[in-house]
Each structure stands twice: as C-alpha cells, then as structure tokens.
C-alpha cells in the first residue's frame, strides 16, 4: 500500500461513520479501497453526535437498515476489534400525557402489523421501573430494549482502523474538489492530485450535495447543526436513554455519571469554516424540559455545549443506494440527525450492493431518484 496509490476498486468520499463502515466492509469483501477525508475521520457529525444507538421511533423506511445495523452493534467488538464504548440499556420514549400515550399505542400497533416487534408499549409501572427519576405525571411510553449508546468518535475511528488493517488506504486531510467521468472510470480530483476508480461512494455528509451536484444529481440537502449539552458527574439515577415525542428531548446518563442532553434543537452551521454557532435561547428551552421532567437535575452544572454539522433531507430520510443516473456511483448521505446507529449496517449493505449488485435488505424509498427534477415540468 504505497503513498503513491492512485486507483482502487472503490473510492469512498467522506470519513464519517458511513464512509468508514463502507470502506471496511468493502475491504472485508476483498475489494481495494481508497477513502478520502478532508479533515480527519469522525471530525464532523460522526464524532460529535449523541452516540444514541436507537431503533426506537424510526421511520419505517429505515427499519430494515436499522435492524441490520443493530445486529452488528451487538457484536461490534468482534467486527472492529474495539467495543466502541457500546452499552445496551434500552431506549425509552416517555409519554407525557394520555394523548401522547395514545399515539405511542397507535405506533406500536402499526409496527406489529408490519412485522416489526422491537418497540414495546409500557405502562406507568414499567416506566417507573425503567426510569425511576421520571416525573410522576407521565402515564407510560414505549421501550426498545436492545437499544443503547456508544462513543461516537471512538466508534468511527475503530471502523477506520479496522478498514486500514484490512488494506484500505485512508487519506485524511485530502479534499475532493470535483468528480468527473474519465472514460470507463471516475476521476476524483482532490487538493492532493487525482484518483481513479470504476466505483465511487458519496458519503460526504453535510457536503454531499456538492458531490451530487457535480454528478448532475442535485439534492435539496439542508445543512443543520443539532446541539448537545453535557453536565458534570451526577449520582447514577438512570440507565436507559430517554426521549420525548411532544417536546424535544433526548437524555442519557453515562456510566461515569455525566448526563448528555439533546433533542435536536438547532444552532447555526457555517460549513465552509467547519464552525457552528450555538443558540442559547433554544438550549434554555431544552434545559427547561429537563428541569420539568427530572427535578434531581436542577442543580447540575452544564460543562459544555456543542453542535455538529449534519445533512438533513426534506423527508428526514437518508439518500442511500445507487445513483439514478450513473453506473458505478453510490450515495450514502443525508442521515438527518439519526445516522450514527445506521453506520455499521449501512456500510455492510452498501458493500454488498457494490460487490454483488444487490442486497436482501430492503432500501425502498431511500433512493436519490425521489429528488430528481423531471426534465419537463
């Protein structure tokens, strides 16, 4: 694997968890791979997210991919030689009132009809057992027991290292400036010269629309900056991850006692400068929700708040699968603030599609064609 290597079976653009996972799974299948990352692997969304490994409350179109991923998370150490800090204490959606609980029931019934059983309706007693600290007013909720959390940057880098150990060539600090056809191949131009391959994967996260535009497949990608806060160590009081439906909240206590507070409130992303600006007014609302629901958190010191740069599609679903226009082009981006859990599985499915032409895991509804602008209006 020389520094001068300029072509491979597959070139992956982007070293988030998706790019790294796809690179690793391709390498496992014996394909030669070059992964190109403009910063370092996990520098963006994949390294700074909430680490939630969640199947709970996912859109049905994503559930097959999410199931595939969950199976891999539960044997993550065998897969990448690092436990990625993965723990599985379940995730609980707390219903704040009866109406909320009614919606939970409808959701679980709908999943059952479709043959998915990972979400389970729980009553007030079970809720209290799982989350003793929750306010007494909450009448129940939904649990997904195999869910959990992992350490994002550690997980992303574990995929990168495993890919490397299987022979993948990881180029960090190299920026793709343009992709273009070059005979039967694709030419991937970078600030460190050009690379060639017959197959390219666009896993460029919040910058993926630029690659797609080069390929004449423009997408309405919105660059967002979801925010998180973390507290100082608190006495252990909660095991599962807790999320709400009506008000926005996700809440997780780590083993060391620190509590991560999120919920999808957005700051401002300045993607060309790798920078984000927080919106403290929204974080205050976020804090107020915690103040209401978990009285024991009221005196907790907030140590840090941050945001990550993420890609969101108008329907909150990823763009996943082959290009609608070109042979040898694959898209894997737009995970709309819930793509960390999908990383291991999406990489496996993508590698399967690249290597064999298809996969048994259904990905209907995720293709880029859904955004194609028809030539005649």
């Amino acid at each position: 694997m020389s520094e001068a290597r300029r072509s491979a079976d597959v070139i992956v653009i982007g070293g988030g968890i998706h790019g790294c996972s796809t690179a690793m799974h391709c390498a496992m299948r014996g394909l030669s791979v070059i992964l190109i990352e403009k910063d370092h692997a996990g520098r963006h969304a994949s390294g700074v997210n909430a680490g939630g490994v969640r199947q709970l409350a996912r859109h049905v179109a994503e559930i097959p991919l999410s199931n595939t991923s969950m199976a891999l998370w539960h044997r993550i150490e065998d897969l990448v030689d690092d436990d990625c800090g993965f723990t599985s204490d379940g995730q609980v959606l707390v219903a704040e009132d009866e109406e909320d609980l009614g919606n939970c029931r409808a959701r679980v019934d709908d999943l059952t009809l479709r043959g998915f059983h990972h979400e389970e309706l729980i009553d007030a007693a079970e809720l209290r057992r799982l989350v003793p600290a929750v306010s007494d007013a909450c009448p129940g909720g939904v649990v997904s027991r195999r869910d959990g959390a992992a350490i994002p940057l550690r997980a992303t880098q574990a995929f990168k290292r495993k890919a490397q150990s299987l022979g993948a060539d990881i180029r960090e600090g190299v920026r793709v400036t343009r992709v273009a056809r070059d005979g039967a191949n694709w030419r991937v131009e970078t600030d460190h010269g050009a690379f060639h391959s017959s197959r390219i994967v666009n896993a460029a996260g919040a910058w993926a629309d630029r690659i797609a535009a080069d390929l004449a497949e423009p997408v309405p990608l919105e660059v967002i900056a979801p925010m998180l806060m973390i507290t100082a160590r608190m006495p252990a009081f909660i095991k599962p991850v807790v999320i709400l439906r009506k008000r926005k909240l996700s809440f997780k206590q780590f083993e060391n006692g620190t509590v991560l507070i999120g919920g999808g409130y957005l700051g401002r992303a300045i993607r060309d400068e790798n920078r984000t600006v927080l919106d403290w007014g929204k974080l205050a609302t976020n804090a107020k929700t915690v103040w209401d629901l978990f009285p024991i958190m009221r005196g907790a010191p907030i140590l840090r708040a941050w945001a990550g740069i993420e890609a969101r599609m108008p329907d909150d679903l990823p763009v996943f699968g082959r290009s609608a226009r070109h042979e040898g082009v694959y898209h894997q981006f737009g995970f709309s603030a819930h793509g960390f859990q999908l990383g291991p599985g999406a990489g496996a499915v993508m590698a399967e599609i690249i290597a064999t032409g298809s996969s048994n895991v259904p990905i209907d509804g995720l293709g880029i064609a859904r955004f194609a602008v028809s030539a005649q209006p």
Partner: protein
Amino acid sequence: MITIETIGQVAEHYDIAVVGAGPAGLAAASRAAELGLSVLLADENPAPGGQIYRAITTTPVTKRAVLGEDYWKGGALVDRLRPTNAAYAPGCTVWSVAPDEAGGFELGLSLGGQARLIAAGQVILATGAQERPFPIPGWTLPGVMTAGAAQIALKASGLVPSGRTVIAGCGPLLYLLAGQLAAAGANIVAVLDTTPRRNWLAAIAAFPGFLRSPYLAKGLKLMAAARGRLPFKTGVTALAAGGSDKLTGVTVTRGGASETIPCDALLLHQGVIPGINLANAAGCAQHFDTVQHCWTPTVDDWFASSIPGIAIAGDGAGIGGAESAALRGEIAALDAARRLGRLSEAERNEKAAPTQAELARSLRGRRFLDLLYRPAPQFLAPPADETIVCRCEEVTAGQIRDTARRLGVTGPNQMKAFLRCGMGPCQGRLCGPTVVELIAQERGVSAEETGYYRLRPPVKPVTLAELAALPPTDAAIKAVVR
C-alpha cells in the same frame, strides 16, 4: 463607573463589552467610555485589578513593601475608570461569546447565580494569562499548589502558606513570588530553579535588546533581592512530590544526584501562557507561538482576532506583562471605536500613535526572557508514565503516550474520545498544553501540527437551573412548534 450588583441591572445592549478587569480590560473600558461609547466591563473576580493588581482596592495587605511598588500602580488604572459612565460588573462570569445574526455578538453572563444573554456591538477579550501546567509526579497531593494560587491567597486575603515551603520552577514571576512570600513571612526552605542552563545559549542573541529594556532594572533587582535572601538551588532537572495522603517532601535531581527536601507546602510555577478558552470557544483562530511555546490567539496590529468585531487585548493574546497589557487594551479600544464609526481611521491612527510607540518600548527585551525561561522538555511532557496529566479525569502521561502510539491518535480532540482528558470541569486548562506536547513527542511532529482542543461554551460551568431560567428566544419557540 456604574457598579452592577445584580444581573437585572445589566443592559440589553452595549456598544462594547470588555471581558476581564485586569490592566488590559481596565484600560480598554476607560478609553472606550471616554470616547462616549456605552461599555460593559465584566470580570468574575469580586474586585478589579486582574492578576497583577488583584484586589488592588480591597487587599488586607497594608505594608506596601510586601507586594512591591509595581503592585500599587494598579490603583491609577481603577481611578481612571471611576469618573466614566462604564458599567462595571464584578463577580460576573462571561461563559459564552458568539456572533449573532445582526452582525454583533451575544454574550452569556452569570452573576449571583443567575444567567443572562445580552448583546454587544464589539467585544474585547481581556481575559489574561494562566499559569502553564506543570505536571510532576505527586502534583495532585494536598500541599502542592501553583505559585500563582499562593499569590492569589496573599493578595486577596493576606494569607501565606504555613510550614516549610518550597518553591519550584522557572520564569520571572517565580522570583517575584518568592520575594513577596518571603516578605510576607513565609518560611521558604528552598527555591528550586529548573531553568535549563543551555537556554542561555539560545537567549544570548536577544540579550542586546534586553539591555535596553524596561525589564532589565526591574528583573535584576528582583533576582538580586530574592537570591540574596533565599536558599536557591539551580540546575534542577527532575522533581517529584512525595507523600501518601499529603505532601511530606520533594525529591530534587540536580547534576545527576537526587535528594529529598522535607516540606509542608510545594508551590509550582513554570511561567504563564495566554488563557485562550473564551477566545477559542468563540471560534477565534489561534497558532502555536514557538518563542513563548504556547497556543496564542492570532491577532493583527490592532489586536483584532480572526473574527471581525472580537479583539483580544493583554496577556490573553500573548504574554507581554502588565504594562503592555494596558497599552494593548487602549489600542484595541480605539480600533473598536473605529469599527463602530465613532472614530475615523485617521483619528484612530493619530490617537493610537503614542500608545503604539510606548508599546514597542514596553515589549523590548521580552524575547530574551521568553527564550531564557523556556521550560525544559521534561517539564512540558512528563517522562514518568504514572504522572497524572488530566486531573479532572485522572489520565496519566503513560496512557496518553500509549493511546497516541497504539491507536494512531493524531490530536487532542481525538484523544478525548478515548481517554476523556480535557472533558472535565476545567475544560483542558490544566492538561491541554501537556496533552499536545505528549502527542507531538510520541508522533515526532510539532505542537502546531498536533493542534489544540476545540473548546466549547460554557467556558465556565453554568447550572441547568440557571440556563432553564433564561428567557426563551423567538427562534426556540418556533423550533418547538415546528
């Protein structure tokens, strides 16, 4: 000067917000207010003065000779602010500075257990310096503290360490401090000087500049006074604090031989470096200054940072000492007034010219000091694996070296994900420089290439209740409805 007592008295908007009431912040706030601008001067300390003039208006130390003549000069800076209309908020922590969408800035403040978001057209960060972390085996034992912390106790409360006291490290402040503590009655049993002998070789080229510098007379006087009276030991190459649950002694290596000096207090000092946390969290660009050997926010001749509208004055933008800090604050205020349209460029230049000349003079000879007192490598990157580097998360030098090597970790932000170093309440103030040094050494690259922590607000902890009580913004209400 209007002293602010409760957070409710802080206005919604100021032309200029100055963070830090040391010499730089006091001069900047005075100058801006004299130009008719509305000014907020916020400082987390209960009284103005910053580090050098800490507690200048309140100190219980009355014998002037104890703290030295320089200390008492601070009174004039405060006196200059008094007749102005500037709002001065003591006990007020600024935990966030961020550009708002109107082209100005939003500041997050805490005062008396309550938080507030306010706006300012321009921001001058005058947050000063901090002591360089000095990790040696045993530095977390009770009885070991930084020399600066001992000085704070002396200035603010008139306290001196009790029992047999050892002072160790290097830098001009070490001599000053030893002298101040001795004058205040501390029982100093040894001053252990770690200045590497070969630094003289590097520094000698800068010596002519030093000869013409204002530091010279002051420095020689300090040194002579301290050396004459105190038991100095030079050429120290290794230090370890000993004791099981508290400090009982310090083991010193000089010229290859070790001895243990029994003591009750060990004061460590390895020079000062810019306190970059607020600037870094605000997104200001920084670089590694190879002469002062530290991360420094990048500023232009007017002390403007990479973010238009944020200036960084004083030791927070590179160590230059108290006199230069005040001059830099003055110049930054003139430029902020120009940005606000209060002064034309020509007016600014004219008013700044004499101050700029004085600044150049005040910085003459600095390079000599920087080169002479550059810490030895073994005190920047502790060789003993068991030395704790990150005190908040109890991470050792050995763990950092091992992780850098085994997992190919290339920078401190990645290291956090594996070892949690820098993720505690101090936000890397006590470990950042050391973590960078260890990674750089292990990988054989420069500190610049290794990078520094990306720091996040709040730069000082804010409680959940404080945050929850902030009035929600329109944007937040919309976000919930969506």
